Every structure is written in structure tokens, then in C-alpha cells.
């Protein structure tokens, strides 16, 4: 006959409630780990998906994710010519916050180097990669748009042709993919009036200069759209992504490019590191501390619960001692209840977590090692928490029954 099980059987409701409480507490402990794992996953997701060997960004920046990087698009052919580089892709990344149905609508805009990169490497849930150079987009499903929906951004309207799953930026915003030019258009979108004023300003500057006065044709050129002006560079991009030829020495190629005065180059691993050691690392320590405190709180609460359960049974424990029960019977009773509570709490944390975490606005990623770690923590908490109850139980005197 198992005393712990009998007690639990006859006080089922109370135990269930207690276990539920512990379960929710453990669920938060689990969730804390999951939030961190989710952040790491999200932070590195795009970097891993894009699968570039080298990242070329604006000199001395930690771009394009950790901070803003702007480099001329013309770097692409320059980089393509570097020995060991198989291909170079221009890459645009920026975050926009618009409004949709009165709610803030945030997402990060990714420019894909059409036609080389049409988004075929993306984890498409439905739909297809980009099929034309303009006015199509692929969105993550967390953006809340439907396949085939038409979305107006800036002066253009885009059709959603594909939906991805789990594509969020390092800050948890859903991603949307466009062709490079469209992405730039969204980024550098200016109202017509601003464009007119800009052109007028150019014309005025030209007319004020000697060259402009001598050659009236120049004034006409100055007032034309900026892409038509050879003196104005094309819009900048965030980075250029390099894929190396098989067998090429990434370090050697990186050294060559690092010698250029206008860019900084990162390997795939360094790019990952930039994100993980930056904002994510601070979040990790923050979450880690919270987690440690939560574990401590759980242990204290568990201790008090076990202690109270023991006090409730003080009379029964005195009786057990009177009829000669060994200490291991009494310690076993308390320890087993603590372990059962811990185990049920753990199971509840897991089950409730599976359901609850999917409703969270950001990814909560529960990993196998995290679950194993929690199991160890719960085991330790249960054992430590029984300490107080056991200490009390061993001090109960059987002669208290006489009064």
C-alpha cells in the first residue's frame, strides 16, 4: 500500500489544484527558455535561409540587421569579379510600420535580387515564388494577408503570390519579400510633390552654376527623373551577399574584400554572431535571470506546499511513528508526494505550454534539451522542497497523540 498515492487519491481535488498551480509556474519557466530559443531561432533564421558565404556591408557597420547599412548597388559587379566569388546578390532590408484597419502594421521588407533570387529558397506554405519583376510579394502568414490579396504600399499595389511560415525578423516582425527594385521603391517612396520639388531644386542648383547657365540643355536634364541622371547613383542596397565557388577559401576572399576602404565583410558565422552577441545576448541574460528567479520562486512555493501538506498530516505522521513506522516510510510519503506533484506539474506545463505558446505573438521554441533541463530542475526542486517538510516530520513526537 502506498500512503502517498492513497492520500492523493482521497484528496484529489486539492492535489489537482496544487499541481495545476505548479504546472503553470513551471510552464512559465519553460516558456522563458522557449522565448530565448525562439529569439535565437528568429534572429538567425534569415541569415541561415539566405545561406550566403560572405556578407558585404557598409564600412564599419554591423549591418544589415543589427544596424543600418547602405552600400551602392554598383558593388555587386565589383564583388562578382573577385576571385573565388561564384555569385553576388544585392540585398535590401528595412522595417516599415504602416497602418492597417487602424492597427499598427509592422513588417520587415526584404528585397530579393530578381531574377536570380525569386524566393525559391523560402519555406513556402502556399503559392509560388515571385514570377515577375514588379508588383508581387511573398509574405509570412503572421502578417495576416491572404494569398491573392492586393496590398497597397507607397504608390504601388502588390499581389500576395506566396505565404511562408516562420519567417520573422530578429525583432519578431513578420517578413515580406519583394524584388529588389520594389523593396527600394517602398523604402525610398516619395510623394509626387516631393519629387517635383526635388527636381525643381536640382534645376535651380544647375541654373545657379556657371555650367548650367552656359548649357541650357543641362537644366532640362536636371529636371528629369533621378534614375535618368548619370550623375546620381542608383538607390543604395543594404548588403551584397556572396556565394563562393566550391573549394574557395572564404578567409582569403574576405581578406581581399576587407582591404577595400568602403566596405566591411562578414562570414556567415560572424553575421550570426553579430546578432546573437548583440541584442539577443542581452535578452538572453535578462531572460536567464528571470528564469533563475522563477526557479527559486517555484522552489519556495513548492517547499511551502509540501510543508503545509506535512503539517496537515502531522497527526497521521505521529500515529505512524507510534505504531513504529520507520523514518523511511515517513520520508517516502513526503518525498513521493513532492515528486508526484512535480511530475504532474511538469506534464501539465508541457501540455498547457504546447497549446498556450502557439498563441503567443512571438515564437516560443521548446527544444528537447530545454525540456530535459526542466525535468532535472523539477526533480531538484521537488527533492529540495521536501527538505522542509521532512525536517518537520522527523521532529513530530508520537506522544502528541495522547492529549
Amino acid at each position: 500500500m502506498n500512503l502517498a498515492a492513497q492520500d492523493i487519491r482521497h484528496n484529489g481535488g486539492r492535489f489537482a489544484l496544487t499541481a495545476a498551480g505548479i504546472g503553470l509556474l513551471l510552464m512559465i519557466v519553460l516558456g522563458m527558455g522557449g522565448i530565448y530559443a525562439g529569439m535565437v531561432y528568429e534572429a538567425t533564421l534569415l541569415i541561415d535561409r539566405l545561406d550566403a558565404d560572405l556578407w558585404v556591408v557598409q564600412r564599419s557597420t554591423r549591418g544589415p540587421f543589427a544596424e543600418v547599412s547602405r552600400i551602392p548597388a554598383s558593388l555587386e559587379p565589383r564583388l562578382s569579379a573577385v576571385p573565388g566569388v561564384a555569385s553576388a546578390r544585392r540585398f535590401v532590408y528595412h522595417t516599415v510600420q504602416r497602418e492597417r484597419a487602424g492597427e499598427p502594421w509592422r513588417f520587415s521588407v526584404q528585397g530579393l535580387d530578381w531574377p536570380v533570387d525569386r524566393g525559391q529558397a523560402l519555406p513556402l506554405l502556399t503559392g509560388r515564388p515571385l514570377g515577375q519583376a514588379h508588383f508581387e510579394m511573398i509574405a509570412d502568414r503572421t502578417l495576416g494577408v491572404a494569398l491573392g490579396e492586393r496590398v497597397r504600399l507607397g504608390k504601388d499595389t502588390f499581389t500576395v503570390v506566396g505565404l511562408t511560415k516562420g519567417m520573422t525578423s530578429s525583432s519578431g516582425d513578420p517578413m515580406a519579400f519583394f524584388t529588389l527594385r520594389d523593396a527600394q521603391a517602398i523604402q525610398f517612396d516619395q510623394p509626387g510633390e516631393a519629387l517635383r520639388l526635388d527636381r525643381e531644386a536640382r534645376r535651380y542648383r544647375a541654373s545657379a552654376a556657371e555650367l548650367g547657365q552656359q548649357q541650357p540643355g543641362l537644366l532640362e536634364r536636371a529636371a528629369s527623373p533621378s534614375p535618368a541622371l548619370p550623375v546620381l547613383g542608383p538607390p543604395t542596397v543594404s548588403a551584397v551577399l556572396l556565394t563562393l565557388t566550391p573549394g574557395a577559401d572564404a578567409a582569403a576572399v574576405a581578406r581581399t574584400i576587407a582591404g577595400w576602404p568602403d566596405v566591411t565583410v562578414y562570414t556567415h558565422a560572424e553575421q550570426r554572431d553579430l546578432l546573437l552577441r548583440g541584442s539577443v545576448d542581452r535578452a538572453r541574460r535578462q531572460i536567464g535571470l528571470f528564469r533563475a528567479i522563477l526557479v527559486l520562486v517555484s522552489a519556495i512555493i513548492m517547499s511551502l506546499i509540501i510543508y503545509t501538506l506535512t503539517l496537515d498530516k502531522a497527526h497521521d505522521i505521529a500515529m505512524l511513528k507510534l505504531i513504529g513506522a520507520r523514518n523511511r516510510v515517513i520520508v517516502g510519503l513526503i518525498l513521493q508526494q513532492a515528486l508526484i506533484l512535480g511530475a504532474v506539474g511538469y506534464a501539465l506545463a508541457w501540455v498547457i505550454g504546447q497549446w498556450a505558446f502557439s498563441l503567443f505573438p512571438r515564437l516560443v521554441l521548446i527544444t528537447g534539451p530545454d525540456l530535459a533541463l526542466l525535468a532535472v530542475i523539477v526533480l531538484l526542486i521537488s527533492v529540495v522542497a521536501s527538505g522542509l517538510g521532512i525536517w518537520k516530520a522527523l521532529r513530530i513526537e508520537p506522544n502528541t497523540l495522547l492529549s
Partner: protein
Amino acid sequence: MTAPALHTAAPVAAGFSVQVDGLTKIYGGGNTEVIAVREASFTVARGEVIALLGPSGSGKSTLLSAIGLINPPTRGRIAINGEPVMDGPRPLVDLRAFRRHHLGFVFQKANLIPFLTARQNVQVALEVNDVAPRAARARADELLDYLGLGDRRHNLPFMLSGGQQQRVAVARALANHPSLVLADEPTAALDGHLSRQVMELLRQVAHEQRAGVIVVTHDHRALDVFDRTLEMEDGALREHAGPAPEPAPVVKPLS
């Protein structure tokens, strides 16, 4: 219904169930000192049923708990079943192990474990004494049948009447064939009829199982059940010369 004799009768051991020699218990010290028991000496033979009488505060419970090895005496010696167990406050054996092998307790309250059924309450006393679960269950059922509670074995204590609970407590006290049963006002919470029933029950098992039984009681109507009476007065023990006032009647069947 006639109470059936227990199949598993205890091995008959000749001699004394308990020998107490010069037992003194002093509580506290200085000017709050209370001498609860002074120089008590007596013996109880196996199969003998003794009543311990005395006014409130005379030291009956103290004496009983000292013999029950849950309240060490200040001075004096105790031997149970021929084995010396206490020399003053110093235990000579593992007290808990000794309790589980040799002693049975019944108190004013049944003190049943509330989350165990009647059967399990008896069973637990057997299992802590290393009786295998199956055998323990069989013995518990046997005892409960014997005490007329066979049909209540699956009830939790709160479903049982006071008298029924007390009978379960008696079953628990008898489970391990104790050589000494100590009962502190076991019938105080019961009415006259039930009270007598429990007393006679104790007497019956004392005789059948050859156990010594000491019962603290205030109930003078049931004194005829006992073989002998001891009286306490202000900590001092006074033995009644001769047997109980009336000869004990033949054990009546349980209702």
C-alpha cells in the same frame, strides 16, 4: 453474532507482559517542577487485563506513555515481554522497532488515518512491521471480521460511527500480536453500551492472544471486566489487594 476466535493466535509466552520498577517522571524543573509519577512499581502478566484508575492529573497518561516508550521516564526501569527496554531516560532497544513488534495503542480518539480505509488503517500497522501486503490485507480482514466490521472494511473513517472507528483502532492495536496493549480512556467518547463492548473486546483479545492489557478508565461501571485494578493518586501507584471487586463474567458476544 458470535465473535469467531482468531485463527492466527499469538505464540503463548509465559511470564510478564510488563515489569515496571521505581518509575518516576518529573516534568519541568525548578519551581515549575511537576512530579507526575513517583516510584511506581508493578507487573502485568501476559493475558492479564488491568484497569488504571485515578483522578484527573494523577499521572495515568504519563505512566502509560512511559510504558508505551513514547515518553521517557526520569528514573526507573521498564521491561516488556521479559526484555529490559528503558533504564531511566536511556533506551536499551530501538524504541520504534520495539513498539512495532510488541506494543499496541488505543486512545480516547480513534486517531485513524483519514485517507485510509478501515482495512488500510489496520494494514498499515502490519506493513510497517514488514508483513507482505497480501498477508497484511488478509490479517486486517480477519481482524475486522472478528470485530464485526467486515462489511465496513472499504469505508473511510469519516463514514464510520465513533464506536466503529474505535473498533478499527483496536484492530490496528492488535494487528501485530502485541505482547502489551495500552489503552488511554478508550471508551471516554462512547456511550455506556459501546464502552462496555470495547472493554470486553480488549479483555477477550488479552485472553485469547495472551497479551497484557492496561486500560486507563474513569468508567467504574465496567470495572468487573478487569482482572485487577491499579489506582493512582498524585503520581503514586496504589495496588488494590486481590482481584477486581467482582469476578469477571464470561465474555459476551459482540452485537
